[in-house]
């Protein structure tokens, strides 16, 4: 047995690599996805270096230039309080990413724990967790986030939890189904019948499959959380001003649009393009990992 494993292992590793490589090759051919990836990368870089390139602090209100149109001093203009819009956007990107990534992580971690538990333990635990999943799917998670945000209050960390906690159900269901398909999958069954070891089965068959599904679901999760965060701001449960966020800027600007369109040009276009980019990437990943499935 041991000999068999050591013989097959190198093959397995090579196969895995080529499977991911195949996916990457398919992804690369999809220009929308590659374009999206470039924009997402820029978005991340801005999020990281934003505070260093911001000309002002986001709490600095220029009282002498309220509602100022774009100029050399304020390249994206200022709002009714005199906040520099360029600075606001830089910080919005940063907070948006922090919240979206944080929330996705929270959802994912809860989802993994409960999904593994349901899949591995079975029985009552499985039934209860799946009832919970049904419950979470009965209403859009945005409403749960809304209710949770009342309890948690406003701020960066509460928002991560408010958005992240209700998002667990989808991941839990995915992980559970992966666990079940691993345990009962025909391919695994066949491999086991041929005498492959557990580690070999895991490395050769499960790993690429599982990684693919998870990457795809995370790639769809991040833009959804970006959207949820902006949505919460629009109903007034987002970050408290002066902490900037896209949702606040959009809600605020559209309610006093007349005369100050620059307040909307920049955040609206950047936010829309970013969501589009994320979705192109996610769509590209889905096709790359699962070329025949889906639509």
């Amino acid at each position, binding site marked *: 047995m041991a000999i068999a494993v050591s013989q097959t292992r190198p093959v397995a590793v090579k196969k895995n690599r080529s499977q991911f490589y195949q996916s990457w090759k398919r992804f690369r051919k999809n220009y*929308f996805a590659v374009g999206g990836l470039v924009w997402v990368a820029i978005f991340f870089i801005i999020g990281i270096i934003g505070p260093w390139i911001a000309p002002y602090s986001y709490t600095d209100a220029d009282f002498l230039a309220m509602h100022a149109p774009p100029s050399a001093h304020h390249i994206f203009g200022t709002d009714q309080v005199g906040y520099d819009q360029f600075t606001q956007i830089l910080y919005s990107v940063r907070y948006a990413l922090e919240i979206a990534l944080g929330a996705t992580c929270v959802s994912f971690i809860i989802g993994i724990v409960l999904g593994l538990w349901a899949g591995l333990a079975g029985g009552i635990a499985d039934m209860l967790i799946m009832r919970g999943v049904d419950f979470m799917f009965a209403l859009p998670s945005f*409403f749960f986030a809304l209710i949770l945000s009342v309890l948690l209050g406003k701020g960066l960390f509460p928002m991560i939890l408010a958005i992240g906690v209700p998002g667990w159900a989808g991941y839990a269901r995915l992980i559970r189904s992966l666990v079940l398909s691993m345990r009962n999958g025909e391919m695994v069954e066949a491999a086991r019948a041929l005498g492959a070891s557990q580690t070999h089965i895991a490395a050769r068959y499960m790993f690429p499959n599982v990684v693919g599904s998870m990457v795809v679901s995370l790639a769809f999760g991040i833009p959804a959380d970006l959207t949820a965060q902006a949505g919460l701001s629009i109903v007034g449960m987002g970050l408290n001003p002066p902490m900037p966020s896209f949702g606040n800027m959009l*809600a605020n600007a559209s309610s006093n649009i*007349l005369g100050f369109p620059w307040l909307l040009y920049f955040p609206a276009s950047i936010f829309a393009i970013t969501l589009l980019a994320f*979705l192109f990437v996610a769509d590209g990943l889905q096709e790359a990992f699962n070329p025949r499935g889906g639509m």
Partner: protein
Amino acid sequence: MFMLRFFAKRFVAIVFTLAAVIAISYIMMYESPGGFMSTSQVASALAPIAAQNPVLYQKVMEEFQQRYGLNLPLWRQCLQYVWHELTFNFGNSMQNPTQTITSQLKTALPISVILAFSSTALSVVIGIPMGVIAALKRNTWIDYTVTTLSMVGQAIPSFVLAVIFVLIFGVLWQNILPVTGWGTFSDAVLPVISLAAAPIGVVARYMRGSLIETMRQDFIRTAKSKGVKYWPLVLKHGVRNSMTALITVVGPQFAFTVVGTVLVENIFAIPGLGKVIGNAFPNFDFPMAITSVFILGAIMMITNLIVDLFYAWIDPRVKLQ
């Protein structure tokens, strides 16, 4: 008979789900910083009444005390509240303590319902032909245009689209379509389009994939062998079969549309349920907030139930369980 039992079972499940939602909401709001009743909102709303009309103030306060039973243990309060909500006995809101929630929702609810349903209807009416044409003209520029548009529509959330519309029709081309308010048909145009964009994309993409798949089926070849002409073939055999499963997509999509309605109303300043939510939550008007979520949730779940029944009706193979 069978239908009836299915309906009853699902209805009970919906009631329990809603009860759980209400209970969880109540507990969370009870535990929230400041607590359920001791918010400044109530105090400030009641202050002028207290000064002007002490009798009314006394009455309102008593009403609140009795309704929420704030000196009872939490689980009793919770049960009591759930019961009140499920029997549509919503009580008064905290921002307007002298007015019942029901009277305030009376005008708001129909607006949201109109928005959500008309945009869903529009998405089906536009999405199906788009998907059908894309499928029939597969791998032509028409197909690529439809597919790309659908993807863009799906990627951009309705409220961002609403903001873009505000920019276009509020700044660039003013006075073509109104970007705020509610009352006339033209007021509804932009919100409905914002809300319909994503479902149109979903429906079109789904329809395209499904029709391509259906047209490869054996029974299409049978129909061709009968001499059925092109359009009857596509419509009666192809589209008819693809449409049955489409309903399973429209159902969940409706939930997204309802969330979208809440947000879009806030962008276009439409006095619907979404605007009520946008008022109630940040102002800690808890009874109003919970009730609005309860009503939207109920609408969604009942709609989904009706969709399932409809699905069973149009696809003879579906067995309700």
